[in-house]
């Protein structure tokens, strides 16, 4: 979902090498590319919102229908400890990553690198816990409406966290390769290199997305464990 556009038209460089772009054209296309990053990042959140909105709809629909009194017999609950741990890891990762991003804006690359990789670790831990939780359930998937929704939540949250991790990891990996060139050009916060500008736009989108992941986890943590 985060395929990066290259500044300008790849085809100009390739098909018509003698047709040089003016700096103005390159700037125009750069801004389009940055804008597309921005739009794309927000759209991903929109897509996610409708995806998880559907699960929330299912949750409330089955809860209010309570067919055969089988929405949630005995108020069964998925393992609260694991659930809280998943929630805590996700939120902590998102906050940490947000902190790292602000540090990067202030020009501190090392902080960002460290927080970024720690976030990846935290995300993977949450992911592992989320999957492990499936083996610790005290109910069968088909035993109630709650159980069904919970199984779907586990699958969907795994996919969500995996997506966030992929985005974050590719950013960090790209950064490792850009590092030297960008640092020579004024650092990630100020460099005017196209790769650096797109990197900044991407970083921003990724941060918003992690915010979204944390929000979704908060909502469903409340739905499944608290109430």
């Amino acid at each position, binding site marked *: 979902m985060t395929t990066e556009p290259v500044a300008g038209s790849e085809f100009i460089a390739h098909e018509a090498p003698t047709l040089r772009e003016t700096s103005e054209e390159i700037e125009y296309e750069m801004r389009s590319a940055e804008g597309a990053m921005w739009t794309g990042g927000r759209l991903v959140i929109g897509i996610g919102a409708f995806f998880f909105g559907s699960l929330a709809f299912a949750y409330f629909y089955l809860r209010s229908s309570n067919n055969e009194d*089988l929405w949630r017999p005995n108020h*069964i609950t998925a393992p609260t400890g694991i659930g809280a741990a998943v929630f805590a890891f996700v939120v902590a990762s998102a906050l940490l990553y947000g902190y790292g991003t602000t540090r990067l804006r202030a020009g501190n690359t090392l902080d960002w690198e460290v927080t970024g990789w720690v976030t990846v670790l935290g995300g993977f831990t949450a992911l592992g816990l989320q999957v492990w939780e499936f083996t610790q359930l005290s109910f069968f998937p088909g035993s109630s409406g709650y159980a069904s929704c919970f199984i779907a939540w586990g699958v969907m949250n795994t996919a969500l966290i995996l997506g966030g991790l992929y985005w974050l990891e590719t950013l960090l990996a790209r950064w490792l390769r850009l590092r030297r060139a960008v640092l020579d050009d004024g650092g990630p916060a100020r460099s005017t290199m196209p790769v650096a500008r797109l990197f900044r736009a991407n970083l921003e989108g990724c941060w918003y997305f992690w915010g979204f992941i944390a929000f979704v986890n908060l909502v469903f943590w409340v739905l499944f464990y608290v109430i």
Partner: protein
Amino acid sequence: MNGGGETHHFRRLGVIWAVLAVAFDLVYYFAIGPHVPPGTLTSTASGAQFDFNILFLVAFPVMAAVWVYWAYALIVWRGSKSDLAEPEGGPKSRGHLGIQVGWIATTTVIVLGVFVFGTVELIVPAGAGGGEGPSPIWTPTSHEVLPIQVIGQQWQFTYRYPTFGGFESRQLMVPAGTTIAFHVTSLDVIHSFWAYQLGVKADANPSVDNVAYTTTKQPGAFTVRCGELCGLWHGAMYNFGKVVPKAQFFVWAQSTEHRSAANTKNLPPFAYTYVPDANGANGGYYPDNVDPYSKVETYGATSPGK
């Protein structure tokens, strides 16, 4: 002809349209309308017919307006090979405030009119024969309502008459001049009870009691078809029913109740919904040693509450 003024075109269009619309509407109202399905066997059937006709009387002039205009334009304003001059463009032909506002206002008025009409026609006849869910909010005024349960299953309908000991029949008999409450449910997948000439349609969902009302008028025959795709033999899921005079109905109901008493005893007691054996129709959700009817069973695992 291209040179004609605006009013000139408008006048001609208006006349053609008015003549056509009025003429066709008259023909429709008197010659076609009374024969429109689903007929007049019940209150809801004639209601549906009436609504359809009213909608048609409104819709035809609208369609005629568009078609007359198009036909006129296609003939009068066709380009010719010799005349290559472009028509008059400019800001005037990009939009005309009056026409645009008029268009929106007109369509809005028509739409709101249709909506109000439809709502009245839905609420007054108590749901107009459509499925109203387990607890209908629009109920018939009649005090004598005959409940009949319709049970859909792959691939047939059966009918239970709770006022006659709850016997179950594959024949649908309905008394004339009576308000009927159809309680529609299913034992497996979604079906739809479509009693065509009765003007009744209600989906049959498992575990759901979907109620639809109608009031029969004169005796007559009708068809019941399944109106929701329900698998292989959906196309063959139909039978025929009859509206018969009240006396005849009572004779039939009482004799059937009597004849099938032995069978009725073996049926599950009458209820608005039936939960089939959980290891049956929907198959295999429970381990063998587990009681599927227990509300609190957590199936072998320790319940956190215990």
